[in-house]
């Protein structure tokens, strides 16, 4: 039987237990309060993130057309392989081991694609492989329930059916880089999105890009869709109609062939770019498919630098073509008269140095017309000496050299027109008058981009009017949401006599006994000027191909009222008359034939199908 005091003793101990139990319940209740009241929004967010998945619906990029609505770039459907680590039943390595057998990429390559994103939140999708083949798609599709962390994403992909045609002008697209993401240059773009990386693709990215849509779905713990919450359809990118004429572009590319060089065709009165070729080129499709590392390395290490758009990104000495600007400046400044003749004995001496004319025997007495036709150096040495570097510089810049043309392509170079100030600031020495003599014939520090030179001559021969060169008309793109300040148009004062004299002289250079006879087009009055820019001093072994002179030709037609100006540059091409003028001829011929209705549209496909080998005799 129980004694009273013993019962009390036991009861006191039970009371201690009751107290502890009460305390424990208090702690639990506090725990639930903390989760369900204090931090509820946080957990609600986590629960949402668990159950809601946003699946991007990629917008197809807009098409790029030429001026006759022929497609230069469009899009096709393709599948990307996506990894979402969140809720995965296995480690990244295990997933990759299961995937690698059916995917072209090796396990190591797949891992290297994941590594940069390991610190990102686990719900962020990681792009593992792009543009899967039919076999790869089937392999993944067959395992989609087993590999719930893996998904296929429909992603429209860029298609450039014409291969290398107009490559530099189109540019290429690629996944946005980390630095681009951080730069803020692209708005509303996320990791993994494809953006224009160069050329028109980059320049008009915001127009071509479109807006990705979203499929917001409820998923269960295995990532399987359980319901649709909403869908925002992607807005396809807008189409871009360019000023390009594919017929001229193809003619120029074919004429340049395998040679390294540039061909540009512009309508000088409107600034419309009809053709813009840089060779060698690349195939933009390589980028659209997600360029492989070795392909990228090959493009970068190629000594001919196929990624460079030589028409706007490289600067070269203009050589004799620069004499046109010398003639204009000399006439305008009245340092030479229209009829004034100077005597060329084959060389001349300025400031104690001897400067040669290209014709050792000399040209004899020359007026400005004949000096341009025959490209007499001594005549222009004198003009340059009379003008001085400051006036040469002022005219050259006024006429469009030494500054960016403002073409709607990224990465344009400004070229260089030297001046006293330039010399002082770059080498901290003063300008020696002797240096002016070299500049007079387009040598020395003066350099231009092929586009710039072509544009400036076009502006001069239409009477002193420079219209910003462009591939897309601001009036066309502005309503599509591209910010533009319209076309920049400059007019500079230049005498009618000066322009006429130059036009006539340049007609002579092509049609008379000049240097540009191979640029002639039957029935079309072409004017033009060749140039040969020395790579190094003449006495070095001239047979080395990389030390050959650069060849220039800039032509326009009809000479008395120019509609088109064509500039051709062939790197290490030798003489401008032989190497560059025929390319201009090919382009002008197509232009002239189209104008006369002799050229049919069907030809464009034939030309595109051809291997772009030089069919024009050099």
């Amino acid at each position: 039987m129980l004694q009273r005091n013993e019962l009390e003793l036991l009861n006191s101990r039970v009371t201690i237990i009751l107290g502890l139990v009460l305390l424990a319940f208090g702690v639990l209740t506090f725990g639930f309060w903390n989760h369900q009241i204090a931090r509820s929004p946080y957990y609600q967010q986590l629960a949402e993130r668990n159950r809601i998945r946003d699946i991007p619906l990629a917008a197809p990029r807009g098409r790029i057309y030429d001026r006759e609505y022929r497609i230069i770039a469009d899009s096709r459907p393709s599948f990307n392989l996506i990894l979402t680590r969140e809720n995965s039943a296995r480690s990244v390595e295990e997933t990759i081991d299961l995937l690698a057998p059916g995917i072209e990429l090796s396990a190591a390559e797949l891992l290297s694609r994941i590594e940069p994103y390991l610190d990102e939140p686990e719900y962020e999708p990681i792009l593992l492989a792009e543009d899967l083949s039919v076999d790869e798609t089937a392999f993944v599709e067959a395992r989609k329930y087993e590999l719930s962390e893996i998904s296929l994403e429909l992603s429209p992909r860029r298609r450039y059916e014409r291969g290398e045609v107009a490559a530099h002008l189109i540019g290429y697209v690629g996944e946005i880089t980390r630095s681009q993401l951080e730069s803020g240059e692209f708005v509303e773009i996320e990791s993994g999105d494809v953006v224009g990386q160069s050329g028109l693709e980059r320049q008009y990215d915001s127009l071509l890009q479109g807006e990705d849509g979203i499929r917001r779905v409820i998923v269960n713990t295995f990532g399987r869709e359980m319901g649709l919450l909403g869908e925002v359809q992607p807005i396809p990118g807008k189409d871009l109609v360019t000023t390009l004429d594919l017929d001229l572009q193809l003619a120029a590319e074919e004429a340049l062939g395998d040679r390294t060089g540039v061909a540009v065709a512009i309508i000088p009165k409107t600034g419309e770019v009809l053709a813009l070729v840089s060779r060698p080129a690349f195939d933009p499709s390589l980028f659209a498919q997600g360029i492989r590392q070795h392909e990228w390395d090959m493009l970068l290490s190629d000594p001919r630098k196929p990624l460079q758009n030589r028409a706007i990104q490289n600067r070269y000495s203009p050589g004799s073509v620069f004499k046109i600007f010398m003639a204009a400046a000399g006439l305008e400044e009245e340092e030479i008269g229209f009829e004034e003749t100077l005597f060329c004995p084959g060389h001349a001496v300025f400031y104690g140095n001897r400067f040669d004319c290209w014709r050792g025997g000399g040209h004899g007495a020359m007026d400005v017309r004949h000096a341009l036709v025959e490209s007499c150096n001594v005549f222009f040495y004198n003009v340059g000496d009379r003008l001085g570097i400051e006036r040469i510089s002022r005219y050259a810049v006024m006429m469009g050299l030494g500054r960016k043309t403002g073409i709607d392509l990224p990465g344009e170079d400004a070229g260089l027109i030297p001046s006293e100030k330039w010399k002082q600031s770059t080498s901290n020495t003063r300008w020696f008058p002797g240096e002016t003599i070299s500049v007079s014939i387009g040598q020395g520090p003066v350099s231009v981009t092929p586009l710039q030179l072509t544009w400036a001559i076009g502006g001069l021969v239409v009477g002193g009017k420079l219209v910003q060169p462009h591939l897309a008309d601001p009036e066309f793109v502005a309503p599509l949401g591209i910010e533009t300040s319209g076309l920049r148009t400059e007019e500079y004062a230049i005498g009618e006599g000066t322009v006429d004299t130059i036009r006539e002289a340049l007609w002579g250079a092509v049609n008379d006994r000049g240097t540009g006879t191979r640029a002639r087009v039957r029935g079309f009055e072409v004017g033009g000027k060749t140039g040969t820019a020395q790579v190094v001093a003449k006495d070095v072994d001239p047979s080395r191909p990389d030390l050959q002179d650069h060849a220039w030709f800039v032509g326009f037609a009809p000479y008395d009222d120019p509609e088109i100006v064509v500039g051709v540059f062939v790197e290490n091409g030798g003489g401008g008359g032989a190497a560059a003028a025929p390319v201009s001829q090919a382009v002008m011929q197509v232009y002239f034939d189209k104008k006369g209705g002799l050229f049919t549209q069907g030809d464009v496909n034939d030309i595109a199908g051809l291997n772009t080998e030089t069919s024009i005799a050099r």
Partner: protein
Amino acid sequence: MIDALTSRRFWQDFDWFLLSVAIALGTIGLIEIYSSTLNMDSASFFLRQLVWLVAGVGVCFVVASVDYHILAEHIVLIYVGAMCLLVGVLLFGSTVAGSRSWFGIGSFGLQPSELAKLVVIVALARFLSEIQKRYLTLPQILGACAICGAPVLLVVAQPDLGTALTFVPILAFGLFVRGVRPAALISGVLIVIFLLPVTWAALEDYQKDRILTFVQPESDPLGSGYQVIQSKIAIGAGGLWGTGLFQGSQNQLGFLPTRHTDFIFSVVAEEMGFVGVCVTLALLLALVFRTLSLTLLPGDTLGLFIVLGVGGMFVFHILVNVGMVIGFMPITGIPLPFLSYGGSSVLTAFIGLGLIVSVRRCRYVN
């Protein structure tokens, strides 16, 4: 026994409050079991649990009708029988989730370890009630440990460490209330602390993982930590009023693990919110307090220690299970009495309830 059931007195003395609390808890469990198995075969889970609850209530009446003194009298025989069942399950039982702890009877299963727990409660109560000193002697302590230890070792051998652990509070409560010298208490605690590293070495890898991830769940969010993280998300997402029945995304979309059994309380928290949690916790607290406060009433020490043992079992299950779903305790497969899906768990809880009622009814006999 049949006499008792037919007597008016039995029904008058019956602890209807305790039974109401148990049925209320069972109902909450039943609703959320239905909800958490919606995308499986919910009707089947619901009906089975309903059958067990009804059977549990019946068993409760039957057990309550038995005078606990009679049970205590024959406890040696019953204890030996229970030991035989535990040995038998090791030899002939079916293996579920790596543990050989079940006897399959048709589509129902019986877990002898649950039954053994109740047997140990009565055996220990008898052993402790026959001692009438202020403090226990060492041989007495070792004797009590032996009564508990034998079934614990057999359960560990299954291996089912979680269930083995549930024997510990029965022993601890009994020893504490019966009286252990403060010095012995302290040295006991010290011995446990010194044994920890040894125990750690003996643990299976998955058990080590569970303890490690308990300390830091984010260290392995996809493995052992996953369950705790998802459970906490479910609880937090419930907010004050809950997402509503059958509306909890964590539950319905399968993010919660073993949600109709061990994690049933997470489902309650998600779908019924903090309000539902408080109601459920209040019911559980009422169950524990009603049980333990019975010991404060005058009566014999045998009854006191039986009630204490059942109470200790309830307390341990509740604190470990609820603590687990909110991340205060490591993950162990210990169910929540009356709520978690499972016949053994439900029947054990109701038999325990029957024992309590029996003590309440018969304590003045003598």
